[in-house]
């Protein structure tokens, strides 16, 4: 169960990812990824219904092009992941709601489970992750995404640090710890 051969994704997921590319890599960076993916027609997504499901294939092509072009660019991927969360889940949702929604708006053979949740930490298990790099199995974009999804629910005095442990290819556990920021 490692390939995501079938599945559906809501338009708003792709739009949020492209917006994140645009913010961090600017217009030519976003265009480079779409060109590598052979998906240049996705440059302008005005008028698409955000809640409409389309086949997973274009999304997978974009993610693979990202793996190729952003090879070894871990910090950039993490930052893009944070922006992706910002655009996909605007404020007002709990962390749990966002996580549950994620597997609804990207429907394929993957899973995210909250194993443990306390006031100071959250332990997540991600199975057959669709965002893990097909090239080196790194997953910085999705980790940035998860971290920011939690950060948005916290006060300005709190920050999130994480620890990722790879169980096997495309599956890992992510421990998020909420720390008080001493500056305040």
């Amino acid at each position, binding site marked *: 169960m490692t390939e995501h051969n079938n599945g559906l994704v809501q338009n708003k997921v792709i739009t949020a990812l492209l917006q994140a590319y645009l913010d961090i890599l600017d217009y030519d960076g976003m265009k480079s990824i779409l060109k590598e993916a052979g998906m240049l027609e996705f440059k302008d997504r005005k008028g698409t219904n955000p809640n409409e499901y389309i086949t997973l294939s274009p999304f997978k092509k974009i993610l693979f092009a990202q793996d190729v072009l952003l090879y070894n*660019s871990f910090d950039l991927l993490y930052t893009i992941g944070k922006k992706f969360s910002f655009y996909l889940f605007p404020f007002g949702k709990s962390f749990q709601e966002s996580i549950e929604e994620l597997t609804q708006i990207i429907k394929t053979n993957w899973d995210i489970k909250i194993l443990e949740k306390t006031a100071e930490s959250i332990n997540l298990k991600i199975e057959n992750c669709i965002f893990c790099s097909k090239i080196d199995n790194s997953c910085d974009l999705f980790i940035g995404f998860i971290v920011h999804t939690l950060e948005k629910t916290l006060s300005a005095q709190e920050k999130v640090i994480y620890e990722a442990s790879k169980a096997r290819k495309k599956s890992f556990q992510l421990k998020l710890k909420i720390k008080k920021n001493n500056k305040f």
Partner: protein
Amino acid sequence: MSDNAREFVFKLTILGDAAVGKTSLISQYVESTFQEDYKPTLGANIIRKDVNIDDTKVRLIMWDLAGQEKYNVIRSMYFQGCVGALLVYDITREKTFAAIKDKWLNDFKKYVEQEGAYILIGNKKDLEEQRMVKTEEGETLGKQIKACNFVETSAKYGENVEKAFENLVRQILRNHGEDIH
């Protein structure tokens, strides 16, 4: 290709002031095309090219970075994982030549963690009648900054473009312990 063929992925950056021809050099190298009209790069233009150097397969991920100052803050992140650079100036504009030493080489050394290789390129060789930077000045600067090579190119006509990229890749392969001439 022999059974011993090895494969590498190298991330390269192309650096230099705005309008020195960075994007044109890449377009010429990757697609053998040249655009007459100048369109500034917005952010980073990222292109892949797979090449064979002797018996070694190399995937080049080339980051053509915008020369404009507004990208200075985020530029450091663009350099992560980079192993080589093409430092480009325009032979018809002295200011772009001075910026190699004053800005672009410093940026590369500041942000690239591992020891990277770089080549110095004087572009727009086809505009000889407007030349403001002599070939000897480029050669001297290349030696002074310890560039692996100095080449004058014409992105418009493709002159020396392939040679410049190949020179740089060969040096990077040598830095990775490959027996490459």
